[in-house]
Structure formats: structure tokens, C-alpha cells
């Protein structure tokens, strides 16, 4: 039954894809009307629109473009023409750096906040105000102080990753079952052992969930950040292709952004599974 459900879901997925691709294909097809009456030079300039069709590429064109990117992802033909693999590599590197820095700060700080009611109350107003700020609002400040667009986008990732991790760590640490702490107390367990052998494993699933949320947000934000600062990265690639009016490449980039985002999320989901315990 389970097997057949999976097969049926797969079949349905394929059907959905075929219907979507088919609708897309026919929606953007050139009408076949002649370009009579239009100045040939102008017709050439506006392309398919002159024939009554759409400038939107069809699924076949996008597929062909995707295939080109997949087979040759790492070419480098100057600053405005790099393979999508290189661009994604830049983005992943920035996200990874900002994310790691956020881990280093947010997890110990979250521990502190979760352990102490005083710190919780003292930090709370700052967290509440900082959390809803769009990370991109930090960009000018980062550019002004850090004076480097690359470092600034890493900083923006850092600042957007820190909140979910901080809040979840504090929440997880504060919510550790009283019983487990009491057991450790009656065994006269020291502070460090209490933190690492009891509280950390008990709060680990909640902390990992915070990290997963942070990673999701970081991957959303990096595209916008790179559009803003330019130079390299998948966000810059999307904006550059828009300037080139290459809708085909924009669609291809959307696909790659989704794909990498899914992979990053799955990695963190697997790590969460490692530390999750059944009660």
C-alpha cells in the first residue's frame, strides 16, 4: 500500500509537470501570423512579439539552456559571463560564512539567555526590535562601515541568520525538562557537565530547528543581497540576465536557486534527525 502510494504520487507529479509544461509551451507559441505590415528592421528588434507570439521562452528553450548550464557550469569568460556553477559557488560560500558566524555567536548567547531569566529579560527588547528588521536594511550600514561589498553581503547573511538561532536556542535551553536538570542536580553534576551532557543534548533538536529556519532565510536573502551589491553570485547572475533580457537564463537561475535551497534544507533536516530523540 505504501509502495503503491509512492508510485501513484510519482505518476501524479509527472502528470502535473507534463500539463504545466504543455500549457506553458502552447501559451508562448508563436501565433504563426506573418509579420506583414511591420518594418522588417523593427520586427527583428522586437523578435517573436512581431509575429504575434510572446517573448517568453518555451519549456524546450529553457530545458536546452538548463542542459547547457549543467554540462558546462564552471566556465569563466570575464566578469559578466561566468558559469552558473561559479555563481552558485559564490552564493553558497557567502551563506556558509555568514551562517557559521551566526552559529558561533547565537548558540552560546542563546544558551546564556535561556539559562538566566535576568539575561532573558535584558536581551528581550533588543531581540524583539531587531528581529523584524529586513536584513537588507542593514546593507548601507554594512557597506559604509565594512567598505567591502563582499564582506557586507556576508554580514547581511550573518544578521538574518542570527535571530531564529538565538531565539530557538534560548527557547530550547529554557524549556529543558525540570526533571532532567533535577536528576543531574541530585547527582551533584558540575556546571560544564550540566551544560554539555544534559542541556545541550536536550535542547539540540530545538537548536537545530532554529538553524534550519536560519538557513532557509539566509538563502532567500542572499539572492536579494547580491542583486544589490552586484559582482558575483547567483543573485547578481539573475539581475545581469534581466539586463541582458535573457528570460531563459532568469528562469534557469530560478530553477537552480530552488534546487540548491532544497539541498541545503535537506542537509540540515538530516542533521536535525541525528540529534532528535523520542520521548
Amino acid at each position, binding site marked *: 500500500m505504501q509502495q503503491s502510494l509512492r508510485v501513484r504520487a510519482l505518476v501524479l507529479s509527472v502528470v502535473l509537470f507534463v500539463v504545466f509544461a504543455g500549457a506553458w509551451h502552447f501559451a508562448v507559441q508563436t501565433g504563426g501570423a506573418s509579420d506583414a505590415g511591420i518594418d522588417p528592421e523593427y520586427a527583428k528588434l522586437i523578435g517573436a512579439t512581431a509575429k504575434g507570439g510572446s517573448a517568453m521562452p518555451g519549456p524546450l528553450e529553457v530545458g536546452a539552456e538548463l542542459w547547457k548550464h549543467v554540462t558546462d557550469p564552471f566556465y569563466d569568460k570575464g566578469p559578466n559571463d561566468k558559469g552558473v556553477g561559479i555563481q552558485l559557488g559564490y552564493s553558497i560560500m557567502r551563506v556558509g560564512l555568514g551562517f557559521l558566524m551566526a552559529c558561533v555567536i547565537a548558540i552560546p548567547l542563546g544558551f546564556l539567555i535561556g539559562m538566566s531569566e535576568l539575561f532573558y529579560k535584558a536581551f528581550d527588547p533588543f531581540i524583539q526590535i531587531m528581529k523584524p528588521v529586513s536584513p537588507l536594511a542593514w546593507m548601507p550600514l554594512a557597506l559604509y562601515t565594512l567598505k567591502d561589498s563582499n564582506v557586507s553581503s556576508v554580514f547581511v547573511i550573518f544578521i538574518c541568520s542570527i535571530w531564529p538561532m538565538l531565539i530557538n536556542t534560548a527557547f530550547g535551553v529554557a524549556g529543558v525538562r525540570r526533571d*532532567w536538570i533535577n536528576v543531574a542536580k541530585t*547527582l551533584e553534576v558540575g556546571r560544564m557537565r550540566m551544560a554539555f551532557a544534559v542541556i545541550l543534548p536536550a535542547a539540540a533538536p530545538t537548536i537545530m530547528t532554529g538553524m534550519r529556519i536560519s538557513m532557509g532565510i539566509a538563502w532567500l536573502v542572499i539572492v536579494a543581497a547580491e542583486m544589490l551589491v552586484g559582482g558575483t553570485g547567483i543573485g547578481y547572475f539573475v539581475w545581469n540576465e534581466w539586463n541582458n533580457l535573457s528570460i531563459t537564463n532568469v528562469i534557469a537561475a530560478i530553477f537552480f536557486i530552488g534546487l540548491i535551497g532544497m539541498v541545503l534544507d535537506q542537509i540540515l533536516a538530516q542533521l536535525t534527525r541525528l540529534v532528535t530523540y523520542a520521548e
Partner: protein
Amino acid sequence: MAETDKPLIRIEGIKKSFPSPEGGEPLGVFEDIWANVMPGDFVCLIGHSGCGKTTLLNILAGLDKPTAGNIIVGGEEIVGPSVDRAVVFQGHALMPWMSAIDNICFAVRSKWPDWSSAKIREHAQKYIDLVRLSGSENRKPAQLSGGMKQRVGIARAMSIEPKTMLLDEPFSALDALTRGSLQDELLQICTATTQTVFMITHDIDEAILLADRIILMTNGPHAHICEIVENSLPRDRTRHNMHHHENYYPLRNHLIEFLVNRSAQFEAELAAETYDPRNPPMVRPTAENSDEGAPRAALAQ
């Protein structure tokens, strides 16, 4: 005076009150509690919910502090938790990310930090075997039944070879069959090791089976020790033969009478009689001195 004649635990006039949420009079849970626990004693505390049984146990464990009075253990006042007093919690309190044996190893390592891992594991295994969990030691708590989990909890408490074991209604979450077999095992182990035990329960038969002395606590707020009942059944009693003993029903009726009626009427008793909280009355209900008599015993049967 011989060493064994000195009480291991002396509870001296402790009182606990919680600040009232509206900022008025503090809410007194219990007051003027005096009691002794002798080495090797099995003491049960019986009382209704809300009389502060668990609070009293937490104070004994060092997890909570009394508002007034103090507790002397082995000549020293309690200032905090100690490995000398192991606690078995009501909800087993096993750490779910550790296997059964690792939960015990965690306790053993806390008591003897210098031991090698092999020695710790060997010691833990001994207690796994003692509670008859051999073969299940590598399972996580989630893969164990309720009774098995509580067995691990008891093994963990015993593994650190504590001077006193404090049990907070350890079997209340279990079904009757499991509870019965665990009571038998606990009795067996405690008799064999002459372990000093202080246990909270609200199960009268459990108290009769396990306890040497049963402390009766009146209803809260302002709960007191009503009296201390000595178990009049021989120590070799078992769950299967104890109800045939002539003292069983007098003892049981005395306890039921307390829980049903006297626990709530204690205020009147306190005013009427010469009640001395430092020396609560000691009673030993037997077939001869029973005021309830045989007809009621027959009725209960």
C-alpha cells in the same frame, strides 16, 4: 548508644510556604514537621494531594529549601543536593537521548569521576541485572515499557550506592500488575541491601507492604504530621500472604480511616488533644487493640 540507634535523617520543625500570587498572606503548605528516619528504615509518607508530600521530598533531596526549620542528615544540615541521597522521580526522568545503561553510567560517573569507562559500565551492568533488565540495556527509554523505565530509574538511584533513597510515588503511573511486581522487587532489593528508604505514596497497600513506619500527613494547607504508624505485620510479609495476617485489616482500616476522615478533621484534633508536633503520636494497630474491630475487617474483605 550504638551507631544504628542514631537517626540517619532528622527532620526538625520544617515549614514551607509559598508567596501568594496576590501579594497577601503567604500560602503555608505544611508546618512544624518533625520526624526521624533510622538507618535501614523504610519510611512511607501518606497524605492527600496538596499536603506538600513532593515539596517535602524535594527539600529532603536538597532541590528545594524549607521556609523554616532544617534537616540534619548524618549530623550535617542539608545545604543542597547530594549524591548520598538518590531520588527516584515520579515520571522516571530518564534522559531520552541516552540508552538505559548510559543513563545509569551517567549517574555512576557523577559519583566516581575517576573510574575508567570500562569499570563504570561494569558497575552499571550490575544494576541493570539487579532490576532484571539484562538484554535491554542498550535500548533507549522510548523503546522501554513504563515499568521497565521505572526499573531503570530505580537502578540509576541504587547504582550510586546512596545512604538514602528518596522515592516520589515511583509506581503511581504504572498499571496494577506491573506495580505489584515492581513493589516485590523493590522490597527484595531493599531487604537484601538494608537500604534506607523514604517513599511517598498514596497507595495504602503499597505502604503496608513496603514500609516499616508510615507517616500520616494531614490535608493542606498548613499540613501537619498526624501520627506515625508502625507496621504491625512481620517483616517477611509478601504481597500474597500479608492480607491473611490478623493485623492486616486493623492496620489497613486505620490508614483508610485516616485518609477518609481524620486527615481533614485534624484541626479539631489539634485543638482538643495535647498534640506535640515534636513527638507525633506513635500507633501500632493490631488485632488486639483495634478500635474498629472484626466486623469491619470482614466487611472490607
